[in-house]
């Protein structure tokens, strides 16, 4: 904040003094320049002829997609069931792997800060950085198309997420409870089960439901790369330009997502 005196000798309040103002302008200038460069790159790679036509195409697709082909819903129950299975079993599998990794990565429970912790952290980072669709692409190339590839892709992507949140929770636990258990002469395993696990259990339950909700969303599109679920039908309908089916599938996906969000909010509310 600064006060400036104008020609008439009156004091004028300013939000920033000259130096801060100049810095502010410089930051805006750099930011705008970077953004303009990005926009130039995007614009260069775009076929503007199509873009000017976009309004017509959008209304064309919209009119083809409406109304949705309701009778197609009978062919969607099985893929929907598959999608839910991919998300649920994938989350379960991820938890089975993520819990030990979380304990190995937490500063206060890792057996070795020098060797084991970095390895656990690398596993967490690489699992988190790669989108589940890319994991699915990779697993489809290795295992062949199908639900199994999708399930593994979801599991691999979730390991990092769950393990990260779990190890952060483990690092924040109350030391005194652990000390109380170890004072009774408990073994390391018993300390873990009676001293640490009860403290992180609410976090663990909350994050698994949260991840399950995310996984439902992600598993709806895995089919696009051949990894099973309702995305397979979406891909098929898109390829044959069957827009009424596409709109129905998108509606079903939206519905599934809303339900899963509702379930996850309810369960988390019950836990916390």
């Amino acid at each position, binding site marked *: 904040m600064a006060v400036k005196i104008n020609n008439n000798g009156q004091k004028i309040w300013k939000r920033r003094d000259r130096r801060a103002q100049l810095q502010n302008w410089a930051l805006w200038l750099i*930011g705008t320049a*970077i*953004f303009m*460069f*990005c*926009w130039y*790159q*995007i*614009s260069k*790679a*775009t*076929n503007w002829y*199509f*873009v000017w036509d*976009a309004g017509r*195409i*959008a209304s064309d*697709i919209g009119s083809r997609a409406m109304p949705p082909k309701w009778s197609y819903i009978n062919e969607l129950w099985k893929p929907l*069931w*598959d999608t839910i*299975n991919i998300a*649920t*079993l994938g989350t*379960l599998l991820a938890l089975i792997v993520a819990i030990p990794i979380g304990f190995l990565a937490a500063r206060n429970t890792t057996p070795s800060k020098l060797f084991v912790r970095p390895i656990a952290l690398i596993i967490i*980072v*690489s699992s*988190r*950085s*790669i*989108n589940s*669709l*890319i994991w699915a*692409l*990779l697993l489809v*190339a*290795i*295992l*062949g198309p*199908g*639900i*199994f590839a999708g*399930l593994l892709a979801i599991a691999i992507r979730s390991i990092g997420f769950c393990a990260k949140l779990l190890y952060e929770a483990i690092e924040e636990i109350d030391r005194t409870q652990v000390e109380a258990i170890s004072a009774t002469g408990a073994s390391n395993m018993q300390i873990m*089960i*009676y001293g640490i696990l009860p403290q992180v*259990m609410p976090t663990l*339950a909350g994050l698994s439901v949260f991840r399950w909700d995310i996984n439902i*969303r*992600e598993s*709806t*599109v895995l089919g*696009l*790369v051949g990894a099973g679920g309702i995305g397979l039908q*979406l891909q098929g309908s*898109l390829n044959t330009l069957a827009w009424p089916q596409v709109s129905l599938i*998108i509606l079903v*996906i*939206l519905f599934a*997502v*809303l339900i899963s*969000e509702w379930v996850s909010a309810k369960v988390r509310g019950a836990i916390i």
Partner: protein
Amino acid sequence: MSNAETANYNGRKWRKPPFIKNPYKRWSLIIISVVYVVAAFATMEVDWQRAYEGLERGANFILSFARPDFVTRFTEISEGIIESLVMALAATVVGVAISIPIALGAARNISFLPIYLICRMIIAISRALNEVIVAILMVAIFGFGPLAGFITLSFSTIGFIGKLLAEEIEKSNKVQAEAIRSTGSSWMQMINYGYQPQFMPRLIGLSMYRLDSNFRHSSVLGLVGAGGVGATLNTAFSRYEFDTAAAIILIIIVLVVLLEYLSSLIRAWVQ
């Protein structure tokens, strides 16, 4: 005193209290989950023969991480990565710019009911639609290329930032805004001087977080033709060029870690 003696002493043995206290609830949950898992596995069609044959290719792929090939497809990889970064950055800027008015509209304490409902609806739609599905529609409408990806990412940024920023504005302190209002300021000035300083740190933090998650998402949009490194990756996989794919994956991991580090620095600096 041994365990058995304690048990005799108290008449019953100590047990760990269960996580779910109500026994009926607990057992029915356990039974339902077991039945569900069995049913899920029973209806899952897995081609074990095919999976077994693929193991060799899987081993090849894992080995190729030891010798990633950055060179053969260098131009494709670097163009793809730059395109992904450009898309993520531009989409974050535009997405954040659009989501600020929407967040203001979606904050119950400063908005009118009709505007509140409209803004909440925009946020809900944007959050419910998966990026890839939006990208497919955008590619169909705007044609192949990074513009479709840019629009997709901007759209999903609106839902994310809009929701969290609106919650932050709803939590903010009313007294400051009233003080500004009492000086006879306009509505715009009240927002600028009363609310903006309160939500600015959170907004910067969220935008940085979104930048790095937009980059992560931008790497898959190429699979459906919406620009970015995903297209290169897809080609590499379909040609079974696992060493090139490994190189791309490694680059993505390194960039994500760098961006995450950068965003945590900036967030620590503003907060």
